[in-house]
């Protein structure tokens, strides 16, 4: 195991800079998730750690050793790919033991390590089969097995669960977490799925357009997003962001529809702001409280009801715990938990306070 230290890393494709000076510290044994929308550079960064892409600027160190010019095979890493990348003409055992065979390890040792990894992953019965004879989930496990067998310093995962169906994804998420708890190998995991990031990570790195927007523990990111991008990216359904003006001596924000939304604690600046409130921090309010809006869409899921309402020109989502009987077109009155509101600068999109 080792820490991964990424210092001011840049990547150019010709004139185009896709990674713009990224600095991330992955402590020894941590599970760090790089998350962001498509094209944000997260996979490129992972491939740079793996040695599959050249590093145009900055340094990447693994265990204190700068590995910028080190061949992938000498970086002591293992990578799991989105499409599994299993060798189709080799059995599961051969796939898993491939790296050890290349390292010219004794046959007994290869067998033993493959069997151990297969036992961890529940693949013991499939060792003589070929990848095409396994299901998607099993193939993904083999890909992980291939990584585990090597006992590397760092695991790299490139959207490993994207090709699985929703149910299997939840199951594999738990299994991955369990394997990490057991092996405690430093892990860098790339996904575009913020739920995967929230549920698995010790630390999340949110990226956009080749820069790091915020790094932190999942709930820190959820509770105190640095800017409107992180605020809207982390959390599902995403945070409501309403442009408005600070009024009432900074105790509330008047949004475009004219509704006054309450704030707690004095904001540091006055003027144009963006008021952020998560859907679960809205509730049905009594007369005289909150603001009125027309429901445009109602989605009951059983445990909760997601109601979308129109506030001026904007759609606001509210996640209501109670069984409510609202239909699209109804006028509802929503209240806000002022203590849970977030405030962002309208110009810079950065958090205020």
């Amino acid at each position: 195991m080792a820490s991964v230290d990424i210092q001011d890393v840049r990547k150019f494709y010709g004139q185009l800079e896709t990674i713009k000076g990224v600095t991330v510290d992955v402590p020894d044994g941590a599970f760090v998730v790089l998350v962001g929308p498509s094209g944000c550079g997260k996979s490129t960064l992972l491939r740079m750690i793996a040695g599959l892409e050249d590093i145009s600027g900055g340094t990447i160190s693994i265990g204190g050793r700068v590995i910028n010019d080190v061949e992938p095979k000498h970086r002591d890493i293992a990578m799991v790919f989105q499409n599994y990348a299993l060798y189709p003409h080799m059995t599961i055992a051969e796939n898993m033991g491939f790296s050890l065979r290349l390292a010219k390890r004794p046959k007994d040792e290869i067998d033993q390590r493959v069997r151990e990894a297969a036992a961890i992953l529940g693949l013991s019965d499939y060792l003589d089969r070929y990848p095409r004879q396994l299901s998607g989930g099993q193939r993904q496990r083999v890909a992980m097995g291939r990584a585990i067998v090597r006992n590397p310093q760092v695991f790299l995962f490139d959207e490993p669960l994207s090709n699985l169906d929703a149910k299997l994804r939840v199951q594999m998420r738990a299994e991955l977490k369990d394997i990490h708890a057991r092996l405690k190998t430093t892990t860098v995991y790339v996904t575009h799925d913020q739920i995967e990031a929230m549920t698995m990570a010790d630390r999340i790195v949110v990226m956009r357009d080749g820069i790091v927007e915020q790094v932190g523990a999942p709930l820190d990111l959820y509770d105190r997003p640095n800017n409107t991008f992180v605020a809207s990216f982390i959390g599902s359904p995403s945070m409501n962001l309403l442009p408005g003006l600070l009024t009432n001596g900074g105790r509330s924000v008047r949004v475009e529809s004219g509704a006054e939304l309450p704030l707690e604690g004095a904001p540091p600046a006055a003027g144009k702001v963006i008021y952020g409130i998560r859907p679960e921090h809205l509730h049905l309010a009594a007369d005289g409280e909150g603001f009125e809006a027309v429901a445009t869409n109602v989605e009951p899921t059983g445990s909760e009801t997601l109601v979308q309402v129109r506030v001026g020109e904007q759609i606001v989502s509210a996640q209501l715990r109670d069984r409510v009987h609202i239909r699209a077109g109804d006028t509802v009155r929503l209240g806000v938990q002022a203590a849970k509101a977030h405030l962002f600068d309208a110009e810079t999109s950065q958090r205020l306070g």
Partner: protein
Amino acid sequence: MTQTIAASTPRPKAGGRMKTRGKLIDFAIDVFLFCFSILMILPLVFLVSNAFKTPEEIVAWPPRIIPSDPTLENFRSVLADTPLPLWIFNSVAFSTLSMVAIVMTSAIAGYVLAKFPFRSLNIIFILILATAIVPFEVYMIPLYFQAQALGVLNSLWGLLLGYLVMSFGIFLIRQNVMHSIPDELLEAARIDGAGEFWIFWRIVLPLLRGALGALAVLAFFQAWTSFAWPMIVTTTRNSYTIEVGLALFQTGFTVDLGRLSAASAAVLVPSITLFVILRRNFVQGVASTGMKE
């Protein structure tokens, strides 16, 4: 209720009619294909049959498939008067070596062109494709002078000179690699510690088996059936390939049908054998373009 039943009763009849019609169509297709295949195979059958006929019977009308008076005279005469086994050996050696060379060069070039992202390689690929549109007759004579300068006339190496690389083969393998070998597979191998040669030998080649099999058959027959180049590069009787040798039975005015048939029938044996061995690869490689899971 009765109405419903009444309404539904004609259905099985209609279904039955449909079935019978479908069967009839299938039968008609079978008959057509059978007749067509007989038509295709008939010349070959007559070739073999003529090899066992006397000169009189060959020209007799109506022709018979089974000779009335079978004779081995044609074979005896061909084997006694011409170095037919040597020609067959020349052809087999030439075709096999050409096949090996083409499979090797196509596999390496096709893989490199498909998987190594250098812009200059695209230009090279276009140049390779461009060579395919130049007819052989255009560079036949310059190539002959090169062979002469190298001192390889009348030899196997001279024959091979124009048959070491096949632009279509490079194209076929390149397309196959692009479709059936994802980049991640090679990257995974690189991370696992494999060198480039190892990756090519142990990952790429096994995955290209189908396509390489198809190419091997194409390359073998290309050399086996080649005529113009062997004709100009070989001038001694012992250095002829079978195609050139067979042409000797025809002169400007006569064709020695019996001996030509016997020699041709003997020549069919190795090519049919090879096709039978590689048939599965050939069909797979051409039909599925090597798409794999």
